[in-house]
């Protein structure tokens, strides 16, 4: 079998605080590159059409759908995945709250959910349940029914304010 004939481009970006250079297929989306090119499998692929939010990563400080952005678009960007957000400690309060409140079951949506919740708390340190539900409405969770997630985000917000 011959090697596949893929058009590629070279990119350079800051990934989880470290510079990285890579040659990526032009048609590869960001989350597939992160997962299979780099080996950061904490970001997940749930729908590949921008609905479920399991692929959420942060690009230049904004949470984006990793399945709706091409890897080449990350050239010269700053990218942070769940792995980076974990090791920097910036979402620790949310992670502890999710753990204690059992705000996850299968865990497949959780990395994307945490990044989205962190973005909310960065803008709003004391969100209401409705505001939390609104902010997380682009992240599907099939297991929990969301109630415990809303509780956990509220608890994390309270602990960060304390």
């Amino acid at each position, binding site marked *: *079998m011959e090697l596949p004939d893929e058009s590629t481009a070279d990119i350079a970006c800051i990934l989880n605080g470290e510079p990285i250079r890579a040659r990526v297929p032009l048609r590869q989306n960001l989350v597939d590159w992160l997962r299979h090119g780099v080996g950061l499998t904490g970001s997940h692929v749930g729908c590949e059409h921008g609905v479920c939010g399991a692929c959420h990563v942060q690009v230049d400080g904004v949470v984006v759908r990793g399945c709706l952005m091409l890897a080449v678009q990350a050239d010269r960007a700053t990218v942070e995945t769940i792995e980076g957000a974990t090791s920097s400690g910036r979402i620790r309060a949310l992670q502890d709250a999710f753990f204690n409140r059992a705000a*996850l*079951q299968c865990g497949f949506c959780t990395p994307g959910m945490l990044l989205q919740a962190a973005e909310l708390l960065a803008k709003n340190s004391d969100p209401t349940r409705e505001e939390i539900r*609104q902010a997380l409405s682009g992240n599907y969770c099939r297991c929990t*029914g969301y109630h415990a997630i809303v509780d956990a985000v509220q608890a994390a917000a309270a602990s960060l304010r304390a």
Partner: protein
Amino acid sequence: MPDTALPPDGWIGRPMPRAATRRLIEGRGRYTDDNAAKGELHAAFLRSPFPHAAFRITGCDAARALPGVRAVLTAEDLAPFCRSWRTQSLAFPGLVSPEQGPLARDRAVYQGEPVALVLAASRAVAEDALELVGVEWNELPAVTDVAHALDAGTPPVHQGLSSNLAWRTEFGEGDVEAAFAKAALVVEERFTFTRHTGVPLEARSVLATYDPAAEALEVRMSHQIPHQMQVHLAELLDLPMGRVRVIAGDVGGGFGIKMHVYPDEVAVCAASRLTGRPVRYVCDRIEALMADIHAREHVVQARMAVDAEGRILAFDVDDIQGLGAYSIYPRSSTVEAMSVLRTVGAPYHFSAYRARLRCALQNKVPTGQYRSVGHPIGCATTERLVDLAAAARGEDPLEFRRRNFLPEAMMPWTNPAGGRMAELSHTATLAEFERLLDLPKLRAEVAAMRAEGRCVGLGFSAVVEYTASGPAAYGRAGVPVAAMDTVVVTLEPTGDVVARASVAEIGQGIQQGIVQVVADAVGVPPSRVTIHTGDTANAPHGGGAWASRGAAIGGEAAWGAGRKLQAEILKTAAALLQSTPDALDVRDGQVVDAKGTPRMSLAELASTVFFRGHELPGGVQPQFTATHQFRREEDLFLTTNGLQASLVEVDPDTGLVTPLRHWVVGDCGRLLNPLLVDEQVRGGVVQGIGEALLEACRYDPGNGQFLTGTLADYLLPMADNAPDVTVGHVETPYSGSALGAKGAGEAGTCGAPAAVLNAVNDALGSRGARISELPVTPTVILRALGTLEAAE
């Protein structure tokens, strides 16, 4: 008699978070697609674009010539490596479900049926190659509408069939005709339940590695029952069971979707065998929505007879089930319909029952067991009839239920539908439910909202669920399904305990439950217990995750294994301490005397046994690995009961229904971990709300094309349209086991659709609208209100 010596102040019953979720929270989960194998090939499937077609593959050369493509495989290519299969069951004699293989041959009978397979260096290249496979399609008439599938003159779903009837039955007891003849009140409704599916967020995925030198197959897959897959893959690929290892690592949700034998997954295993290379395949979302099992397509005509005192006399139910093109392998899709018909009337006393079932083949993907199999249909049917009866009598719907609940004193009782009711707590559950809801206050709130002009409704449902199936359920049917579980516990040299279990973790938290049980059974803190599940090489055979069985069956196995290990620890310690086992106990990792004074730590004991065996007295051979295999001998199912309430608001202009709040009180026996049980209930409720309001697998009525292949078309509950769910419990431990646990994971899903349906009808009642269709979409509402014209 079960050994029921649960320690006071033990770990069982404590609301502990799941230790295992730390990994998932930090992005360190390992789902199937997170594992790559050296030298792997990626698979992509060519699937039938038509619901029914004859086809001929005319050319694979162009696809094979594409750089990066290793193979293009058809049914003929895989046939030498894989047997075909046919769904059969002694429970459903005469069931019509033709032979199936991993790829369709000559004829596709549902849209999404795999017909060819490409193996390539990447998934993208494999998908490129699919477009180069030449296929001549000859589209045939398709049968999709369940209501007409059985009509004379409807074309057959499979070539050569004279009818699309897959199976039929009638059953029941008592004189139904007499009951309806003497009834003071008869309520009747025709219900339409639209297909939906489970949508685990991680789609089905498989990484198969066949080693031709060892003649062994290792399969990583996202599955609820790795041991079941080991049995079937060994049989289909003609390998000894010991040379098939199935590993289900982290599983991103199951809900019943991942407990069947799917053609594509078998094809991937066969392809690995054919090529001698690892093959990886992950369903994309469109494939998952189209070709995962669907569930719960029923048209139910039901009536209920009530006497002058408002007591239920009888039910008479006719169900047509949309089965799909095949009865799902190996358990059979008909199980769902039988579950529907066994659930009708289940919370109540009644004296006559007649059920008529026809299962219709369709040119659609097979239906199968989805969370709370069949129960939501039976529950919605019953609870809607109950509300209609209460309304006709002008009485409170909860009062009607209170009068008709099966009295505790009558149990155990086998009802005329054949359901055996035991140890249910309707009276206590209703009392707790009324306390939790604070009904007078809630009703005042509803009245106040209505006074503001808001269209709100409050609906109730009573739930009885058949959980934790016993060995006879599939055993009598001749279907190879394990209703038992195995747990192996080992005391390690450090005094730590390792448990290996055949139960499967799919997010429900059973690992944590088992850890708490083992901790109490042995006498160590949970932090000293490590559990391994999801690997056939790790634990002997057992049932995995289905039928809410983990706590009730796996938990018993864990208790039994832990007690055996503790007995061995005490025997060994007594020999070393010149004491007797009866005079000692194990608490918090220490061997203690009768006063609770520590005599020896488990670390000291175990290191003596493993590293300084010469210090042991002669004749002492400690067995620090204990195995327990548990099967329940009594009670085919463990029945559980509960009540739910739903408060909804309807927008009469748009037809949109917003669930405002939801309440549940359930009795699932002993709670091993109330925190995790509560979240199972909440998640189940919201899945049921999705069933009630949003979720539908739709097909074009003209050409049978599948219309809901994306998550923008197939709607799921989201954070901003799901309500808060208040949960309460009544705890009636099952008397026939040590732990007393019953099933907990599906009851939320069982009762939520019924409660929502009743709530919507309560909201619309004053406007003269009546709804008997799920999901209750805006279109359904507007048609019921007369704003939109009715469908044909």
